[in-house]
């Protein structure tokens, strides 16, 4: 289907988010929509699918003007939107989520057998191993994302909009998704693909439209431009190297994990961390990377194993104790674990810093709180109207920066990052890498889980590879390359 959006404008209060944007997409095309965090990409797509109203402009679908007032109406015309943030019901099963609101039934009685069968077929088509009867909340973020994609495919899709679909997927799942995109394109489906990952855009997209500050900068054929061109259009300047230069002077071993286990995901993990080091944790999805970190942090119960901090064995039973030992943990699921969405940026940052911001009686120093937040907003270049803006109305990348700011302000000794740059634009990624680099110079030690291999390779001083809950190897120096890591991660599978 051909989609034309003409002269679209939208303001939230006084914040002009979109300012006369044009966007055209033809049949059987994959269009990349690029732009910094807060450029207005998600907002534009929400307008297209009727989730929010536009102030100005027209939308033509196959030449006919449409003004959807609800996502359901757009879905009827075959416009399917897979959101940046997961939109699943955690307490329901995979199958119930896929058929939500469209349950197959006979006179109100559910036909569970057919639904289960269709779900299983969808999963097979996607090439993923997910049990249709599994409860959503028990699945990893990546698997939940695949369920969302499956849900979209289950509809009769004509225009598929994907807002950063791969940010939670593993390499192999990403490849599966790309295969699906290619086959949908062959069937004539138009695809709008939002991503901050340049490699992906150049792999699968035909055209690229760049937004900056709510304006459409340009639309090009992907074959006519380079990554650097796109980045320049996005941020209006050059960013130079993508990763900062790491210095290689480390202190003593500050943190050590020995034979850690927590059934069923963590089975035998050992590694150590030196002061000022960035230790990458690589592995496929399901390798137990996040679970290992949760076990260290005390948010999952430890079965066995020992944790030493500065040579002393410590017993961490819950996050409160972990925090006391100077550990901070930025989890991967920012919506459910990282943020209090209906509260302000200030509230979110101070929640992790209550001790520091209050006197002995527990009375908050609101000036100090405000100053800390304003400092963080500046340090992390968080794009917002002011510190009292609610985080739910921030763009995805800026939400991630708030989580980051919240933890870095606690002055941790050991910082655990689980997918720290998920959904963050190239410019801001660089800023986060620079912050990580600076922190290590101040003696902070960092453990970083990432599914983006370039990031692991670009930032880590050493890399621990996990496979099925076990640490299977540590690589360092020139051995940190894709081949070595993938070999260990798959163990020849």
């Amino acid at each position: 289907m051909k989609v034309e959006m003409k002269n679209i404008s939208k303001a939230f209060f006084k914040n002009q988010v979109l300012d006369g944007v044009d966007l055209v997409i033809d049949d059987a095309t994959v269009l990349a929509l690029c732009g910094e965090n807060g450029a207005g990409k998600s907002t534009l797509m929400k307008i297209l699918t009727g989730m929010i109203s536009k102030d100005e402009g027209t939308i033509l679908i196959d030449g006919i003007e449409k003004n959807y007032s609800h996502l359901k109406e757009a879905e009827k015309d075959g416009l399917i939107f897979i959101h940046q943030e997961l939109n699943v019901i955690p307490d329901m099963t995979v199958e119930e989520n896929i058929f939500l609101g469209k349950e197959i039934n006979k006179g109100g009685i559910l036909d569970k057998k057919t639904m289960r069968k269709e779900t299983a077929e969808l999963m097979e088509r996607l090439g993923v191993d997910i049990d249709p009867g599994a409860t959503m909340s028990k699945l990893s973020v990546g698997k939940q994302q695949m369920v969302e994609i499956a849900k979209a495919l289950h509809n009769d899709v004509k225009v598929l909009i994907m807002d950063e679909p791969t940010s939670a997927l593993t390499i192999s799942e990403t490849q599966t998704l790309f295969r699906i995109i290619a086959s949908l394109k062959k069937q004539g489906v138009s695809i709008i693909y939002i991503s901050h990952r340049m490699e992906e855009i150049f792999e699968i997209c035909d055209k690229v439209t760049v937004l900056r500050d709510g304006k459409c900068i340009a639309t090009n054929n992907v074959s006519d431009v380079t990554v650097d061109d796109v980045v320049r259009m996005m941020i209006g300047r050059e960013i130079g190297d993508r990763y900062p230069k790491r210095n290689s002077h480390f202190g003593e071993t500050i943190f050590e994990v020995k034979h850690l286990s927590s059934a069923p995901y963590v089975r035998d993990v050992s590694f150590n961390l030196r002061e000022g080091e960035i230790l990458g944790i690589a592995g496929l999805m399901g390798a137990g990377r996040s679970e290992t970190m949760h076990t260290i942090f005390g948010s999952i119960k430890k079965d066995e194993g020992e944790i030493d901090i500065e040579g002393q064995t410590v017993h961490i039973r819950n996050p409160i104790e972990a925090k006391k030992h100077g550990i901070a943990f930025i989890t991967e699921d920012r919506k459910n674990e990282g943020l209090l969405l209906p509260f302000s940026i200030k509230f979110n940052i101070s929640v992790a810093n209550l001790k520091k911001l209050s006197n002995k009686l527990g009375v908050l120093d609101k000036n100090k709180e405000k100053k800390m937040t304003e400092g963080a907003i500046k340090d992390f270049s968080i794009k917002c109207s002011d510190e009292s803006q609610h985080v739910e109305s921030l763009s995805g990348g800026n939400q991630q920066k708030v989580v980051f700011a919240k933890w870095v302000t606690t002055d941790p000794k050991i910082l655990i990052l689980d997918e720290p740059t998920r959904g963050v634009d190239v410019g801001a990624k660089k800023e986060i890498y620079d912050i990580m680099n600076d922190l290590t110079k101040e003696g902070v030690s960092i453990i970083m889980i990432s599914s983006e291999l370039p990031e692991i390779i670009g930032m880590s001083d050493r890399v621990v590879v996990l496979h099925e809950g076990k640490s299977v190897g540590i690589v360092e120096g020139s051995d940190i390359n894709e081949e070595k890591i993938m070999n260990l991660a798959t163990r020849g599978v």
Partner: protein
Amino acid sequence: MKDRFKKINISEFGSLIALIALIVGISLLSKNFATVGNFLSLLRQSSINGLIAFGMTLVILTGGIDLSVGSILAFTTAIAAKLILMGVTSPLAILISLLLGAIFGFITGFIITKGRIQPFIATLISMTVFRGLTLIFSNGKPISGVTRGEDFSAAFLTAIGKGTILGVPTPVWILIIVFIVLYFLLSNTTYGRKIYSTGSNEKAASLAGINTVRTKMSVYAISGFMSALAGIILLSRLGSAQPTLGSGYELDAIAAGALGGISLSGGRGKITGTLIGVLIIAVLNNGLNIIGVSSYYQDVIKGIVILIAVLSDKER
């Protein structure tokens, strides 16, 4: 100044307008309503529900509910009355009953957090048990005669419910002080942040290093304390402790919170809203009496007003 104005929550604003509209409306219907004397007695009447509703608000903000307030009120009041009759001086008896209120609430909170039982169920259980204990304790009969006598003990107890300071009834002063303390607690202390974050997203709060278990236990203790405090005012006014005292009080307290925009799913709302809700209920009770609406109709009207307020709150 403008900044201040921005901070007024729209939902609170809605309930404030509802309150003003009610006052104006009832004043037009009866000239006996808008008198200083009536307003003072209206405020005094609202203090009981007010104190309970404040405690309830903290509980609701953490995402819970407390159905046991009425029973804890009855039990602690009965104990205070018995102590006084046994010769314990009233300030000490009051202190003991307040402390017991907090302990009873804490026990409920302990069951909820450590036993992982839904607050609705757990407080339903403690509501039943404490009511039963009250009946056993008092043999099912009122314990009366506590304010009789000429000594300091009787005078002190009487002053709490019936006295005035600067022309304003003592219970109103108590309500105001508690309001200010809780207002400060919620908006200016770490404890307030802990309550809001626990109710908004318990998982995120706990990962941020907040002791959500302790936070939850504490709000039930505060709620129990508030119930006991309300009970003391009642005891002073009535001069006796009825075993059925306070039954159904939880509903008015929850209604006050709902009227004031406290979200029953937790994490959202302000104590100012609850205060307005308490006043709306008090104005309704008092006003409907004054204009002579039969008590059968009063409940229906009250229900309808709550419905309208809660619906308009949804508009945002």
